[in-house]
Each structure stands twice: as structure tokens, then as C-alpha cells.
């Protein structure tokens, strides 16, 4: 559940960022497409990073064993 919710958050943030970029610098269709590509690439990269780390911790096979002297 947490996974899907946060994925949705990333998706919404991506949409909002694309809108902001379109509003801030609207320089013709080809430039807009380029900016859109950049924003989507960044969103996808960030989401992948978060998703990988989240999935890896969902069902871990080992647990933290504290070391002495902590």
C-alpha cells in the first residue's frame, strides 16, 4: 500500500513539475517537448531509485545486528 501511494506521489509531482516548466519557460513546441523529456526522465530516475530501495526493504532476509560498543 505504501508503495503504490508513494508511486502516485511521484507521478503527481512529475505532472506538477511539467506544468511548472511549461509555465515558466514556454519557448515553442520543440523546446517544450525537450523540457518535458528532461522532467520525465528526472522523475523516472528518482522514482526508480526510491522504488528499488523501498522494495529491497519490504521483505528483508536479514535484520540489523548491533555491533558492540554502540
Amino acid at each position, binding site marked *: 500500500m505504501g508503495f503504490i501511494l508513494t508511486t502516485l506521489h511521484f507521478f503527481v509531482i512529475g505532472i506538477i513539475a511539467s506544468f511548472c516548466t511549461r509555465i515558466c519557460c514556454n519557448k515553442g513546441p*520543440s523546446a517544450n*517537448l525537450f523540457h518535458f523529456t*528532461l522532467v520525465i526522465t528526472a522523475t523516472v*530516475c528518482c522514482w526508480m*531509485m526510491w522504488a528499488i*530501495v523501498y*522494495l529491497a*526493504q519490504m521483505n528483508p532476509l536479514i*535484520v540489523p545486528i*548491533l555491533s558492540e560498543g554502540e
Partner: protein
Amino acid sequence: MEVLKNLPEMDLMRSEKMTSVQLIIPVESAHRAVSYLGELGLLQFRDLNDDKSPFQRTFVNQVKRCAEMSRKLRFFKDQINKAGLLSSALPTMQPDIDLEALETQLAEHEHELIEMNANSEKLQQTYNEFLEFKMVLQKAGVFLVSGNKSYETTEGIELDDNVYPSDYPESASLLEQATHSGPSNPSGLRFICGIIPKSKILLFERMLFRATRGNLLFNQAPADDLIMDAVSSEMVEKTVFVVFFSGEQARTKILKICEAFGANCYPVPEDFTKQTQITQEVLSRLSELETTLDVGIRHRNAALHTIGFHLTIWMTMVKREKAVFDTLNMLNFDVTKKCLVGEGWCPIFAKPQIQEALQRATFDSNSQVGIIFHVMDAVESPPTYFRTNAFTNAYQEIVDAYGVAKYQEANPAVYTVITFPFLFAVMFGDWGHGICLLIGALILIAREGKLSSQKLGSFMEMLFGGRYVLLLMSLFSIYCGLIYNEFFSVPYHIFGASAYKCRDKSCSDAYTVGLIKYRDAYPFGVDPSWRGSRSELPFLNSLKMKMSILFGVAQMNLGIMISYLNSIFFNNSLDIRYQFVPQMIFLNSLFGYLSLLIIIKWCTGSQADLYHVMIYMFLSPFDDLGENELFWGQRPLQILLLLSALVAVPWMLFPKPFILRKQHTERFQGRAYGILRSTEMDTDSEPGSARQHVEEFNFSEVFVHQMIHSIEFVLGSVSNTASYLRLWALSLAHSELSTVFYEKVLLLAWGYENILIRLVGLAVFAFATAFILLMMETLSAFLHALRLHWVEFQNKFYGGDGYKFKPFSFAAIADDED
């Protein structure tokens, strides 16, 4: 398919459409036209006189004159620098100066300067000689007085006192005086006074002893001040010497030795009163010379100052003129000798601007005939031109450093803008270090205006050029640092409490069995409980290795997709069917499947060993999976994928060469023009029927090429996927270094109560962080991220064998020279 054919255009994706043009310029407007085109900077001239040597070209004389003028200007600049004047340019732009007038002006200035310099030199030389004479008089006078006294008492032989002439004609060197002023009396004790650099005095003395067989008396005293040595023109220490000897032969020998050693001899009278008289005269001459020299230098500096006002403007003008003539040399005269014909490349969007500039040139030079400018067909492929702004320029240069894109192929820079800083951040992830990088990047961007006009050192220039890259790198580093939960290697509970807790209240087995997971996974990033635990490395290593594989497979798939876009753009369905499809199948049935297994294992928490799964998939695909079963239907799926991969290899190897051969025979046998569905030619080269070059189709060459390509892909898929593991390796190294510096330097020093130790520890921590982690690790991660892009990403689709568009532009010349 149709949708993909009509994809909307994206800004940096493909290079600008270029066209080959021909210009026919009448001679009277040629110079002006080329100047205006240089100001515009959008036309690349082709050198039509490539085979001619520089001396055979038309405008060689003008080029020589420009070179001569720039030599003069460089001479002026040297002189100004030597004189230590600051060059100040007049802020107002001068009206267009005629080149001829400038030439004569420069010649005049040069002549004047050379004359002034020569006079100064001579005066300076005379001044030095008088200075040396003064020192010799000072020091040698002491010896002679004592010697004089002793000789007068013993033998009464008169020592010649007409050693000096009564006045000093300026033209004759004093050395000549010394040689002429020999005593009239051949016998008797004589002396020679002089001055020699201190470094040579010992050898000199020894030589004199040997030459005169010991029959001499040698006295020396060091001079008080440093003197300018004429030979080496630097200030050296000199020693005054007096040599007493007897006999004419000894005198000639001594004089020759003096000359050989570069010792200057000066006539010093023995008589004390005469000495003082001469000293007075020398001192007065010295002060005269000083004032004369001063006046001379001031005069010269004034001249240099006036030149310095115009120097930059003149230099730019001469550079431009030389560039214009060099370009004019690339054009050809036509048959009537009244027009110059030129060819070149220009972007299609620039055609109106170029036409307008040419019209202006025609009007300004009062020419009756207009300049003809029309499109022409070209055989070679056009140059590559990307219109970049300050932000994308750095990324385009990064991509171009590996290879300039072929005309209109997909530009990897579009994705590199984001993925390059991102992969850097995966290897650098620490939000404390990221903030430091961000501060640096923001400083560079804030002082953009000031720094861009300054001349920076090569390291600072690279750093400044990449300021936007640095900005993105730092932003992504902060993000990845938050995900890895490392702030100078310290984790924080920013996103809530940890998901792990002790099993019971006493935490007795926390050190043996460990904590227990009682909640959902930590919502954002790595759980802070992992840091410092004994099982931290096994967990993080497994996480980061799998993460690297996932990123690698994703980026390589993106690369193959871009090659698909290229095939669509160039209408190359052969490539789509026999290259793109088998490549996708091969890569994804093996490494895409691995990625899938990784994700399933994470989601289900299965204990299956993925190494064994992959290995047994190849070694014994039909065996029972046992505890390595992750999902239902895994065994048949694995068999299917293995078969697909095995089929894909000959699919990408064999069909394409045979089909190419068939196409070639069909095309050039004149049959089946209508049946040809796909061609291998670019869509924007000339229509085939006009210039048909019958190429030899070397089947073995094509086959070997295809085989190399396939083997490279197949083996490369394994090696490239493994290469992405450097993401894990560097991130581990960064984390460990950071931990070591934090725990073993800062915490250790902080444990002591002494404030001095704490300060020292803080300083060492700061230095280590700045130099090792921020500089070295940044460069290292930068390099590895670059390699991942250049090799693993780009070899899936990039040709990179184009050439860059280099228009004739005055702005570019100014940049070049600086």
C-alpha cells in the same frame, strides 16, 4: 508505426537541417560580403583551393601584409608588457579605419619605437661602463695609493701617470683607452685595473698567474653594489681587481686574458688628486646619463601609452581582416575573372539572414550586380550543428568529446542531461557532500557575468564551463544522499521512526540475533538502523548490486530504443527487423529476466539464490528448480527465454548481409526499381538517379562487419551489465571513506576533553572531506559516470562519426585567439 514516423520534433534531438549552397560574388563586393558573413557566423565555407599551397592562392599578399601587421602589434604588446604599463583601452569604438592607413601608422610607430629602444640601449651601455669605472676608481684607488707609496720609497721609478687621457671622447670605449694608454717606458712595474664578475675571479687569477709565470701581484676587492652585466643582462656581483706586472709581453697576455674572461679594464691614474678629479668627472657624467635615460624612458612610455589605447581594437581589426582574406582565398575566380565563386554549408533556418546580409553588402559597396546565393547538391554528408544554450552546451561538449554525431542521428545529450548527473549521484550519494557541491555550483552561477569575461586558468575554466552540470550533480546527490540516509555518513530519522526494534525490553539479543522488523518498510530511503550494525554491509551490498543491475538494464534498453528511433527516422526497416528486434529479445530474455527475478524476490521475500537460478538456467534448464522456485511456471518460462536468446543470435548475424547483397544486385541491375521497399541510403542525400556511383559490394566485408557487430553485442551484453556494478563499487567506497573520516577522525578527536585536540581533529576532518571526498571522489565518480555513458549507453545506438559545423565567424576567431 505511423505515429512514430510523425513524432513531433524535439529541440536537441537531431542536428539542424543543413543545406549546401553556392555563392557567386562580384569582386567589388567580395570583401564586404565576407565581412558581413563573418559577423553573422552561420556559413561554413568549403575550401575550393585545397590542393594549392598557401603561396599559390589569390590573396596571398594581403594575408602577408596582415601577418606583418599582427607581428608589429605583437611587438608593441611585448614592449608594453616589458615596460610594465597597464593596457587601457579607449572605451569608444573608432570608426572604420582603412587598412592601408593602419599599415602606415603601424610602420611609423614601430620605427619610432625601435629607434627609441636602440638609443636607450646605447645610453644604458655607456651608463653601465661609467658605473663600473666609478667602482674601479673607488676600490683600485686604495691599492694604488698604497702601492704608489711603497714604490716611491723603494726605487723611485716613476709609474706612469699618463694612463688616462685628459678627456673622454664618448664614442671610444674605455677599454680601447686602456689598451692604448700603455706606458711609454717599456720597463718598470705597471698595472691594469678592471672589474670582472665574481664567479670568474678565481679562474681569472689562476690564469693570470700561469700566463705570467707568477710574476704578478693580484689584488681584488668586491664591488659594493650589483651591476648589470652586459652579456647576461642581469644584475651580478662584480669584483674590482688590480694586476701589477712588468714587461710588454706580460701586458699583452694579461689584456688578452681580460678580454677572454669578459673583464672590463679601466684606466685609473695613480696620482691621488688625479683620481679624485676623474672620480668627480665620472660622477657628473653618471648623473647626466641618468637624467637622459629617464627622459628617454618617459618619452618611450608616453608613446607606448598612446599605442596601448588602440592596441586591442587594432588587433581585433587585423585578426578579422586576416580571417576575411583567408576565407577569400578559399573561393575561386570564375571564367570571366569578375566574380568569385564559393561553396559552403549553412543551416536552413539561417538562409534568410544570410540573404539579407549579402543584400546589405551589395548595397554598401555600391555594386551594380547582386550576389547570387542558391542551393546546390553535395556529395558528402553535411556537418552536424546543434543549437545549444548555456545550459545544454556543457552536456553537448561531453557527448562530442567522444564523437560528434552523424548528420541527423539521435543525440544522446538529450538523455545525458539527466542520466549523467543521476548516475554520478548514485555513486556519490551523501546529502552533506551534496550540499557542499551545491554551494560551489551556486557560487559559480551567481558570478557568471564576472567570471565569463575574465581569463581563467585551465582548471577553473573547465569548472566554470561545467557549472550547470555541477548544479544538477549536486541536486541529485542531495536526493541520493537522502535515499542512502547519509549526512557525512551519519543517518538521521528524517522520515519517521525506524522499522526495526529490539525483540524485548532488555535488548539482550540485539547483539547476537538482531532486531526485528515490526512495521512497514521505512517510507523513504534506507532505514537508519542499518548504519553501524554488523550486518550493514551484507544488506547494503546486496541492495546496491541489484540496484546497479536494474539501472544498467534500464539504460541499455533505453539505448536500444533510441536505435529503433534512428531506424525509423532513416527509413531503415532492415535494421528494425534484423537488428533491433533480436537485440531486444536477447538482452531482455537474459538480463531483463534477471531484473524481473530481482524484483520478484524482493516482493515475495523468497530465499531463492539468484546466482544459482541464472546458472542452472543455462546448465540444466530442464531440471526441477526446488527451492529456487520464485513463481509458478518459472521452469517453462526459463526454457522459453533461453530458446529465444539462442534464436536471436543467428537472427542478428545472418539475414542482414544476404539481404543487403540481394538489394544491391537488384538495384544495380536495373530491375525491380518499384519493388525496392527500403533503401540503405540516407533520405537526405541527393536523388540516386542523378549521380549514380556504382559501389562495389564486398560481401565478405559486410558479413564480417555484421559478425563483429553481433559478437560485440552478445558478449557486450554480459560485460556491460557487469560494468554497471561500478555504481555499487564507487558508492561503497564513498560511504566507507566517509565513515572512516567521521568515526576515526572526528569522533576520536571529539572524545578528548582538550579543546586543542578537538580543533585539530575538526581541521583534519575538514581537509580530508574537502580534498579526498569532495575533490577526488567527485572526479572519480564523474569519470565513471562518463564512461558508463560513452561506452555502455552509446554503443547501443550511437554512430558518432560526423564532423562539427564550423562557420566562418568573427566571434569564434576572437575566442580562438584568447
